C-alpha cells in the first residue's frame, strides 16, 4: 500500500514533472526533458506567488511565535498542576480540530455582514471591515486564523524548552534582585535559542500553504492570496487544460524544499529531547 500510494506516485511525479501532460486534452504524456523547468523559471507567476507566500510568512511567523512564547512563559510559571493542565488542554484545543471545518468557521467569522469580527467592531461603533474581500486585508486575515489554529503546537514546543531550564537559574537571578522581566530577558530567552530555531524551521513549512486560501478566498481577491502552492494547484486542477505535467514541477520544488526544512527541524528536535 505504502509502495503503491506513496512511492509509485512519487516516482511518477518525477517522470511527469519532466513531461508534457495536459490531463483534460486526453493526450498521452510525452517526455520533454527540461522544457517544463525552463517554462517554470520564466513564468511571471513564479516571483509573484513567491512574493505573496513570503509576505504571508512575514506576518504569520513573528505573530505566532511571540504569542505562543508569551503564553508558554506564563503557563510555565503556573505552580498548581491541575490548573496548569486545564489551561494547557484548552489552549491546545484548536490544534486538534478538523482543519477544513476550522477554516470554514473562520471564513464565516470574517463574513462582512454576519461575521463575529464585524459584529464585535459594531459593538464599539467601528465601521465594518472587509476582512477577506479587501486585497490588502485578506492575507493578514488568513494569517490571523492560522495563529489561532496552531498556537498550541508552538506553545508545547516552548514548554518543552522551558521545562529543560533548571529552576535554580531563575531562583538565583531573583535572589540577586533581578526583576521578572530581566529574568525572562537574560536567563530564559538565551536558553530557549535552540527551541526558537526549531519553531522557525518547523513553521517555515507554511510556505506550502494551500488549503487555507483555497477554502477562505479561493486565491482572491485579485490574486492577493494566491500562494505558490495554490498556484501549483490551480495549474494542475483549475486551469483550462489541467496541465499536470507543468504543475508537477511546481509541486516538486515545493516538496523538496519543505522536506529539507522538516528534516532540519527534526534533527534539531531530537538533539533537544535527548
Amino acid at each position, binding site marked *: *500500500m*505504502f509502495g503503491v500510494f506513496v512511492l509509485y*506516485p512519487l516516482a511518477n*511525479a518525477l517522470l511527469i514533472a519532466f513531461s508534457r501532460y495536459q490531463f483534460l486534452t486526453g493526450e498521452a504524456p510525452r517526455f520533454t526533458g527540461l522544457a517544463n523547468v525552463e517554462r517554470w523559471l520564466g513564468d511571471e507567476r513564479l516571483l509573484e506567488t513567491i512574493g505573496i507566500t513570503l509576505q504571508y510568512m512575514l506576518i504569520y511567523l513573528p505573530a505566532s511565535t511571540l504569542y505562543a512564547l508569551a503564553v508558554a512563559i506564563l503557563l510555565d510559571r*503556573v505552580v498548581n498542576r491541575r490548573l496548569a493542565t486545564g489551561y494547557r488542554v484548552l489552549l491546545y484545543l484548536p490544534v*486538534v480540530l*478538523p482543519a477544513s471545518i476550522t477554516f470554514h468557521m473562520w471564513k464565516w467569522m470574517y463574513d462582512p455582514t454576519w461575521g463575529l469580527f464585524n459584529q464585535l467592531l459594531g459593538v464599539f461603533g467601528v465601521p465594518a471591515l472587509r476582512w477577506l474581500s479587501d486585497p490588502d486585508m485578506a492575507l493578514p486575515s488568513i494569517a490571523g486564523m492560522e495563529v489561532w489554529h496552531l498556537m498550541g503546537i508552538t506553545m508545547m514546543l516552548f514548554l518543552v524548552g522551558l521545562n529543560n531550564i533548571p529552576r535554580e537559574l531563575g531562583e538565583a537571578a531573583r535572589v540577586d534582585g533581578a526583576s521578572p522581566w530581566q529574568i525572562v530577558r537574560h536567563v530564559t530567552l538565551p536558553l530557549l535559542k535552540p527551541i526558537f530555531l526549531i519553531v522557525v524551521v518547523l513553521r517555515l513549512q507554511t510556505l506550502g500553504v494551500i488549503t487555507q486560501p483555497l477554502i477562505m478566498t479561493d486565491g482572491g481577491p485579485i490574486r492577493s492570496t494566491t500562494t505558490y502552492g495554490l498556484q501549483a*494547484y490551480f495549474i494542475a486542477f483549475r486551469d483550462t487544460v489541467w496541465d499536470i505535467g507543468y504543475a508537477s514541477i511546481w509541486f516538486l520544488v515545493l516538496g523538496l524544499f519543505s*522536506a529539507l526544512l522538516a528534516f532540519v527541524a527534526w534533527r534539531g528536535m531530537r538533539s533537544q529531547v*535527548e
Partner: protein
Amino acid sequence: MVEAVPHLAGAGILRLGQVIPVAVTALRRGLRRGVRPGALLKHAALLAAVFLSIAPFLWLLSIALRPVTETYIVPMPLLPSSLTFTHFLDMLLVAPLMAVYYRNSFVITGASVAAVVAIACLAGYAFARLHFPAREPLFWIVVTAMFLPAAIALPPLYVLLSNLNLLDTWLGLILPYTGWYLPVSMFIMRGVYQAIPRELEDAARLDGASAWQIFWRIMLPLGASGAIVVAILAFVPIWGEYLFSFTFTSTTNSMPMSVGIRFFEPSPATGKYTFNVAAAAALVMFLPSMLVYVGLQKWFTKGLMEGALKF
C-alpha cells in the same frame, strides 16, 4: 449526547452576566488576603488567551442555538434571547445529504485509521525486531517519505486513481490516506517496540512461542499505548482533510463532510440553508475531535511530547 454538550455550554454563555460579579468579588477577596498582583496578572493573561482559544466555538454555539429570527438582523445580537435545538434536527430534515457526508466521513476516516494502526504495528515490529533483507535501506525510504508534504503527490495520485477507476470512491481516499500516514506511524511503532526489553521475548521463545505468538501475546499488548498515539495522530488530520478529498471526490458517492461543509455556506442570498444550520453542522463535525481529544488527553500529551517530538 450531541445536544447535551452544546446545551451546557450554551447555558454557560447566558450565565456569563451572573458569573462576572462573582469573579470580581473573588478577586477583591484575593487581593485583600495578599495575593501578589503579579500572579493575578498572570492568570488574567492566561484566562484571556484561553478565552481567545474558545471564543470562536462560543460564537458558533450562539449561532447554532438561536432562532432564525434573531440571526439575520443587522447588527446581530451577540447573545440570543432564547435557545432552540431545532437546527440540529433541521440539519437532517432540511439537508438529507448531510447524513450521507457524515457516513462517508466515518467510513473513510475509520477505515484509514484502522488500516494505519494495523499495518504500522506489524511493520513497526518487523523493523524493530525481525531480520529481513534490505531492512535498513527500506527503513530509510520510510524516513524520507515521512518528510514529504502530501500535496506533491496530488497530480500523480489523481492520474493513478483515475487509471484504477477509483476516483470518487471510498477506497480512492482510504488508500492514499493510509499510505501517507503510514511512514510516521511505522516510525513511531518501531520506536515503541524497540523500547520493550528483549528479555521478555527471549523468555517467551525459550517457552516455545513462535514469532507470531510473541507479537500477538507480548508486543501488541505492551505497545498498545503507542498504537493509541498513532491512531490519534492519524485521526486528527484525516478527519479534517480537505486537499485530497476536495480533489478526488465529486459526488455524494464518497464526499466526506470536510468537503461537504462548503455546500452549507451560510449565504442568505441563496436562502437554501440558514447560518444556524451551517453552525450546527460545523459543531457536530467538531464533536468527535473534541471527544477524542478530551477522552484520550493523557495519551495525547504523552504522544506529543514523546512520540511525535522524539519520533
